[in-house]
């Protein structure tokens, strides 16, 4: 349908399209209420004005942050999230990105739980030609990451990307384990050089809000990677999470290749949501 006549049907269709983009129903209603109020006040008369209003409202709701390292200091990035979202692969993509920017990058194989998780990261390290700190299956992840930290501190100018085992946010034991890793890292490094990145799969529904909320409460999340955006899911989750929790998005993953990561682009999300509204 077209953004057009100010019929009740129009607002319903707008709400529907937002909901189908995985935007939380309450926020979808908020957006359409806002639009309804403004157009009733005579502020929006033409379809063009309506369209740009919706665009503005949506893009303003999505928070972004740049998490690329700003200087040549040591830095550590802890990557976390629920099972299978794309943590390990995103690390490899970030490594490629930062190697290309001339930085020295290494991995800490902090997923010592899942079958062949260390091997998976080691394959990436081999392909990228970078160092990986690893111990065997079942080792203490904090110890693995601690080793990596000691080493980059001794050498200077290194970025350590630390993997963690996928874990459900509703399993408190597993979240506590992350907090332990977090404490160990904090005991070693200054806050500005430590970033916690949460990975969320773009195909995730409303549960993604809970994921972000729990991990943010437990550790404090600096930014989110919206992975698997090539699924053509519209990524409305980014809007809900920004809006309800105030956590910004840093990157989006768009495939399995090393180049398939880019800074979060709210315009791209707005485009895909708008195409659903207008298509």
């Amino acid at each position: 349908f077209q953004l057009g006549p100010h019929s009740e049907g129009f607002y319903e269709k707008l709400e529907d399209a937002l909901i189908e983009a995985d935007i939380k129903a309450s926020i979808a209603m908020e957006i359409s209420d806002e639009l309804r109020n403004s157009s009733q006040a005579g502020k929006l008369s033409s379809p063009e004005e309506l369209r740009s209003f919706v665009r503005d409202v949506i893009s303003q709701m999505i928070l972004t942050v740049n998490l690329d390292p700003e200087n040549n200091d040591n830095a550590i990035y802890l990557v976390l999230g629920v099972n299978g979202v794309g943590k390990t692969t995103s690390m490899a993509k970030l490594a490629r990105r930062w190697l290309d920017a001339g930085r020295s990058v290494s991995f800490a194989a902090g997923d010592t739980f899942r079958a062949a998780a260390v091997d998976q990261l080691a394959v990436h390290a081999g392909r990228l030609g970078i160092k990986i700190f690893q111990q065997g299956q079942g080792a203490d992840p904090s110890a693995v990451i601690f080793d990596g930290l000691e080493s980059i501190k001794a050498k200077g100018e290194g970025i350590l990307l630390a993997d963690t085992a996928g874990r459900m946010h509703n399993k408190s034991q597993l979240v506590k384990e992350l907090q332990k890793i977090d404490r160990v890292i904090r005991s070693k490094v200054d806050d500005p050089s430590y970033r916690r990145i949460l990975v969320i799969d773009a195909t995730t529904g409303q549960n993604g809000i809970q994921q972000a909320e729990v991990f943010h409460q437990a550790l404090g999340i600096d930014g989110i990677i919206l992975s698997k955006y090539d699924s053509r899911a519209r990524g409305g989750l980014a809007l809900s999470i920004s809006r309800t929790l105030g956590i910004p998005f840093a990157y989006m993953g768009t495939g399995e290749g090393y180049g398939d990561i880019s800074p979060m682009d709210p315009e791209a999300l707005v485009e895909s949501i708008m195409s659903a509204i207008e298509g």
Partner: protein
Amino acid sequence: MRSSGVSILFDRLSTTFSDLFRQMGGKAKISEKNVQDAVEQIKLALLEADVNLRVVRRFVNATLKEATGEHVLRSVSPGQQFVKIVHDRIVHLLGDEAAGLNLKGPDTTSVILLLGLQGSGKTTTASKLAARLKKEGRRPLLVAADLVRPAAVDQLVTLGSQIAVDVHSEKGAKDPVKVAKNGLKRGKKELYDTVIIDTSGRMHVDADLMKEIKSVFQAVKPDETLMVADAMTGQHAVDIAKSFDETVELSGVILSKFDSDTRGGAALSLKSITGKAIKFIGVGEKSDDLEPFVPERIASRILGM
């Protein structure tokens, strides 16, 4: 934008089904207006549970019709009747009863093909199914036909050894169709009664990879072609399932990661749009964390009861 708008709307949505049912269930008389309000709340709660909007709309229309019928409003306890109608309807849509695997007898070799999006849980589910079938007295062989994801073969080999199930893998192989075929050939020759084929994750919108899975499907003619989907999937779940079903004709679905706190509305969407049975749910990372799909239980979960 007024920030207060959000919290007001949150309040509007915070009525859970159990609250709603308590209110409705306790009523001796309910009006058509009562029912309409309740149905509106049900609509919102189903959306919060990630049930696909089209499914929600269909459900709501049908329920409204039945629940506002004379025989309900005039019955002895209309509130309870209403609650029962909603619950039963969801159970019915989910499939009424648990559906098992359709495999041939143990004197021949049956084939299970697993497919789905990246990271949905295929490899883990392959080993869970193998463990389950082994416990039932069958002799499964796992086939490592994911040649894309780094260390995917190692992952399956490790999982296989944990449950003492053999794994067919080919070093340096490039063609998943060949590996799947060879695995089946070996399965038949060495008298395994079930061959479980793990494939690489693929996006339903990736034409080349969808063509590839079709070739695997045609080469091994599976008895069960199961899509492994993440129970936390949102509105997009039906598009994903439809694409896979159009490509290979699914025989069923396994929903992984039900141990999350998702309400799991994807189950309702998948079943009612594709008509495919949901055969199992994954409830953890370990090899025995696989349970039969019990529609009653999932209906209550979707409803937040």
